[in-house]
């Protein structure tokens, strides 16, 4: 049984960091308060949260940020109209969610990744390595996407974004399997929304991908 107050929990999280030999910290870690960000409101935190919750939020920010990078290419790289529309909507969604996650972390005095942090730093016994969250495109894959144009971009984007979304869904699965996870309504709802929205979006993208593969006109 784990019954945590905010204070106890924070102490626990810190403790966990101290003993861990393996911890994940986003690059550009301290982007706590950028101009226009809501000020922290720790008094709004009424429900317990766990290390898994915090890591989920910290990991999902760079994950979302990469989706914004990918979608940012849609217009310049000549995506089809349907994909440009999808990207316009996806960009709005993911920007909003990044803002929400940063607010959530700021209220809980946690490390707040910059809104455009696209990599994580893995601190392994003092050795730092770059790391990508599940489903994220590698630098090479991202570069290939950047080079592609038109229908080839569409295809690479869809394959990449389906994988990317699947990664987010996997992150939700990991979260829900963790101790003390998602007891906080905000994080439960957000993680559930990620699960539901991205599942629906994968459905839509798979449909688009199949129509590309089927050689139908764009």
């Amino acid at each position: 049984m784990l019954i945590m107050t905010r204070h106890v929990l924070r102490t626990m999280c810190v403790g966990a960091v101290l003993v861990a030999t393996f911890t994940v910290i986003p690059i550009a870690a301290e982007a706590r308060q950028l101009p226009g960000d809501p000020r922290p409101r720790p008094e709004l935190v009424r429900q317990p949260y766990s290390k898994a919750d915090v890591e989920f939020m910290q990991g999902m920010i760079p994950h979302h940020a990469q989706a914004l990078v990918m979608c940012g290419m849609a217009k310049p790289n000549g995506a089809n109209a349907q994909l440009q529309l999808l990207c316009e909507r996806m960009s709005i969604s993911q920007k909003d969610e990044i803002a929400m996650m940063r607010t959530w972390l700021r209220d809980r005095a946690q490390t707040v990744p910059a809104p455009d942090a696209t990599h994580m730093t893995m601190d392994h016994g003092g050795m730092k390595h770059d790391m990508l969250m599940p489903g994220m495109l590698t630098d090479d894959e991202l570069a290939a996407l950047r080079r592609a144009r038109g229908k080839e971009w569409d295809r690479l984007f869809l394959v990449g974004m389906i994988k990317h979304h699947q990664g987010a869904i996997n992150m939700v699965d990991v979260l829900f399997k963790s101790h003390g996870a998602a007891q906080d309504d905000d994080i439960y709802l957000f993680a559930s929304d990620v699960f539901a929205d991205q599942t629906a979006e994968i459905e839509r993208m798979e449909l688009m991908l199949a129509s590309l593969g089927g050689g139908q006109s764009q």
Partner: protein
Amino acid sequence: MTATAVTAAQQAPPPQAAQPPAGGRGQAAPPPPVPALPATMPAPVTPTISATAPTPDARVGLRAGYWDAAQAAWNMRLVSNTPPPEAYRGITSSDLAFTGKYVVQGNYHGILFWDVSNPTRPVLVKDYVCPASQNDVSVYKHLLFVSSEGTGARLDCGTQGVPEPVSKERIRGIRIFDISTISNPKYVGNVQTCRGSHTHTVAEDPNDKEAVYVYISGSAGVRSAEELPGCADGNMAENPETSRFRVEVIRVPLANPEKAAVVNYARIFNDLAPPPRRVEPGRGGAATPPPTGATPPPAGVTPPAGATPPAAGRGGRAGGPPTGPNQCHDITTYPEAGLAGGACGGYGLLLDIREVAHPVRMDFAGDPNMSFWHSATFNNDGTKVLFSDEWGGGRAPRCRAEDRLEWGANALFTVERGKLVFHSYYKMPAPQTEWENCVAHNGSLIPIPGRDVMVQGFYQGGITVFDWTDIKKPIEIAYFDRGPLEDGRLTSAGSWSVYWHNGYIYSSEIARGLDIYELVQTPHISQNEIDAAKTVVFAEANAQEQKRITWPPSFAKARAFLDQLERSNGMSAQNLSAARESLAAAEKATGAARRSALEQLSTRVNSQVTGSSDQAKMKMLVDALNELAR
């Protein structure tokens, strides 16, 4: 035993007095984030009444405030705002259900029971602490059903949450209460399901009077089999027994609600969902294997037909979408029309529910502008259906100037020979701030005879009333809105759901409690139309269970049709005024004289039908007069 055969008999909750236990959110409460109530709550603003909405839009630039936000009202009036009791403040209020003179309001902290006999002053008769998200509520006779999906919900209604990833203390599914005495609800049972219950839908089966059915909708992931035996994740091709791609149908015996159990896993998604990578290009859609592997029902209940394969060879859909939904967010049943609308993630489904325990899919629609199909509302004739898109899940600000009007909106369809035909979108049109969560959410029809009018909540985008009689051109005819809960920060608030019920409009305000509104006479809605709407009375009502509206014979109804004919120019001014005079004279008369006056008027109007540009309405008027004459 199958997963869902876990019933209350095995897991009876302790009495309400047993909680809250020590610790957790119940006790270790940090300073309350909710501002104290003002000494007097702000008075409702006086609505502007006009044919065209004020410009600039009065909803833009409203002052923020928790209890004292500025209000904008056009063509409708706030009657009362009643804050939630203290323990529930700062915690999300969710859906509403109606029974007798009571409104039942879900809240993530528990359930609130309001006596609304006096709409200017609702009285809280009971609050029942029982945390869960979303705690969406439905009533059926003496029973109350409550949805539980969040991972922190406990079987015993405790407030301490369930931190263990696998736990026998957790409930994700449906709780059942006996509310024979509303001030003393009794928690009589529950049904655990593999994906929990985000919302649910009550459905009556005319052939099974001993029971009531509940369709479970869930959009969450699948629980581990360790926590609930039989639960299995994966897609249909990998695992035909998967807990996804199905809707659970629960049968609740009215005399023994604790024996409620799942009786069918309706595979209404089949054939929508051949995994796309397995589709060979140019060959059309590969069919999913027949869903014969559905998990068997618990022992002792009617065996389900198992799956309900959709009609084979769906014409032009052979290629079909290569993938499909595996879940429904909401299912709205309309038993009298034999229909249900499934708002199912990436698709809207039209279901045939004439066999209540075995819903069958008739058609589906996809739409590139729809992000997340959230809920469905039929018009009263069952000839139209409106699907809403909860883009962003309801906690994002999706009504800013840059958020397109066709996104996070409603998509409007006609139902033509069992098929969905798209016509238009409707979204609350006023741009909102980035501090206001806003997207299409729950609403209901307003029973104005002869028109399709609906009231709908858009969270902090407020409440919008619109007319979708002309499905190609839905128009807003009234609204109410408040400023953001906070300036400079997005905190969830606004209308979760809003329903017309027995003459008033009830809104569950996520943060601010229970709002009650009324319609006022305006150029868009006449007093006669309001009076006719008020003749419709339901003893109970649930959001996702649509009932056929029937209007008892009334002079108000006949006058409402005359008002509509005036608006549509379907009757000449001279005929209109003569008809109104005759109707007034008939109302003054009694017995045979009244009957004869009404019959004469009916005959006269009937003779004018052919020359009218609005013959359908003329015929409705004739019928209304004949009903009155009888």
